[in-house]
């Protein structure tokens, strides 16, 4: 059973990476900025959703303060990059800061379990957002010279690489002993501890991986956007987006967040043409339906349909 699941997971990893490789040719095929921007959003969303999926899907800890780490990554990367550091190094530094902060607060935060962890991290994210908004209230705009040298394709390829890294990371995690331990914690933390799983250590590992990826995604956002308020990447809607995409696709699976992200961005952009935020009404309702009726999301729906057809 497990070997079968593993093989299917590897198949999905190959398929997703194949699709990403094909997307590498897109800038050669089209020069339309709107298309590249659209795919960029999907790639950023995949990274964000997979990063949230590690801590929430695999380790079962619903982190509602995820935006704080996305925001920290953006803040550090943007500052260093505008100061002259190469973007890849700046993003790495952003990810490091996000992870370090996560580990610093993680020990205390993991004293909380289940829903208490969720609301505790939500409050933590809001503390950071408000503070950053108060300290850095000026809009951050790129210097004119940087805007002149702006190339969308650079952002696009960086996003593509990051999405591939996040997919490989989650695939490797799912197949590893550590990943199994995390899933054991998700199912029953006490039972996992009793059978020798170091719960706190593994939860911190999941948090570090998750926030590191979120920090990188934040750095990418800082590299992509020409001007935004520094508190914007700290906004809870980044967390909410990641949560919706992951749950609708299939929480705790490799392919779920990818499917969720693609569907989410497509519908969001399509619906925004006639009604801003209409997608939130639909996805909010869809999300409730999934929690009540189909906890495995689209992935489970597909598996069920397949089983019905095979009969």
């Amino acid at each position: 059973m497990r070997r079968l699941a593993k093989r299917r997971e590897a198949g999905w990893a190959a398929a997703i990476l194949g699709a990403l490789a094909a997307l590498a040719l897109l800038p050669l095929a089209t020069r339309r900025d709107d298309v590249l921007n659209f795919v960029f959003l999907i790639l950023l969303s995949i990274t964000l959703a997979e990063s949230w999926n590690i801590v929430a899907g695999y380790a079962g800890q619903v982190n509602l303060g995820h935006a704080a780490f996305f925001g920290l990554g953006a803040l550090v990367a943007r500052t260093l990059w505008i100061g002259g550091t190469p973007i890849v190094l700046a993003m790495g530094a952003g990810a490091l800061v996000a992870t370090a902060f996560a580990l610093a607060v993680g020990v205390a935060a993991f004293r909380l379990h289940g829903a208490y962890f969720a609301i505790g991290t939500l409050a933590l994210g809001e503390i950071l957002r408000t503070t950053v908004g108060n300290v850095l209230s000026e809009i951050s705009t790129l210097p004119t010279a940087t805007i002149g040298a702006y190339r969308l394709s650079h952002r696009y390829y960086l996003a593509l690489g990051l999405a591939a890294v996040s997919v490989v990371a989650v695939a490797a995690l799912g197949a590893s002993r550590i990943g199994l331990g995390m899933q054991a914690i998700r199912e029953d933390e006490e039972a996992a501890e009793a059978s020798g799983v170091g719960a706190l250590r593994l939860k911190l590992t999941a948090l570090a991986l998750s926030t590191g990826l979120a920090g990188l995604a934040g750095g990418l956002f800082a590299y992509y956007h020409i001007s935004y308020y520094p508190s914007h990447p700290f906004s809870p809607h980044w967390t909410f987006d990641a949560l919706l995409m992951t749950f609708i696709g299939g929480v705790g699976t490799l392919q779920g967040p990818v499917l969720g992200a693609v569907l989410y961005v497509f519908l969001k952009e399509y619906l925004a043409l006639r009604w801003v935020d209409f997608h939130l009404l639909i996805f909010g309702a869809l999300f409730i339906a999934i929690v009540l009726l189909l906890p495995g999301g689209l992935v489970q729906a597909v598996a069920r349909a397949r089983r019905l057809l095979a009969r």
Partner: protein
Amino acid sequence: MLAQQLLLGLLIGGLYGLAAAGLSLVFGVLKVLNVAHGELIMLGGYGAFWLVALLGIDPFASLLLVVPLSLLLGLCLYWGLFGFVVRADEETRIKNSLLIGFGLALALHALAVRLWTADERSIVTPYGGAVWSVGGLSIPLVRLLSLALAFALIGGVHLLLAHWRWGKAIRATAEDWQAALLTGIDVRRAYLLAFAIGTGLAGAAGTLVSIGYSISPSIGLEWTLKALIVVVLAGLGSMIGTFVGGLVLGVAEAASAAVFGGPYREVVGLIIFVVVLVVRPRGLFGR
């Protein structure tokens, strides 16, 4: 000047208490953590706003319509959504209700933006500017009346829980639902009533917020957090305690705004919240 700020903090603190009372009742009885509570407050605020604007009734009198409508909304939400959650064991119940409340919050927010735009609104009262000056302090009468009404409502629910037949059933269910079931209490009905009363309290809070302060579709998260902070401060099981917790938060916010500057008003409550949570990770929502 400081005394004036603290006074204003005390006045809004009454509304924090009222906002938290509904959340506390629902969480204490159903073990359902409804994070859409702030959105229910927002809906109550819009209900009052439109009643006043379209029917031209007195803002405070709109409570007489908003509260029954909110009770009805609570019944619908329980039948349609949260009633499905209470079948699970306690831990799953809290987690799933959190997620459902979350989806509900997003959907209600999007709906409110569509229906009423993202603009901030508040009810203009004919007596809105009236101020009562006592010993150098000026007390806005509308907010004072709001505080008094918040206390009256919470006191009313307290009396209901203490003396009404179903109120006692609700308390027994909160204490131990299995034992309550064994003594012949219709636990499902107690859940339904508690959820409806909680929503009614949210509607009342929303009405008072739109009279003394302002509403917009996006106030939901802020009010949910305020309510959560108060619940953490006050614990469960006492309506009057929740009201006092609200006053404490209001004064603490005002004091911190005076010390660190206005923009940090929000941060203090959140820090208290996180610290109390972490120091008392499990016993916190206990009584």
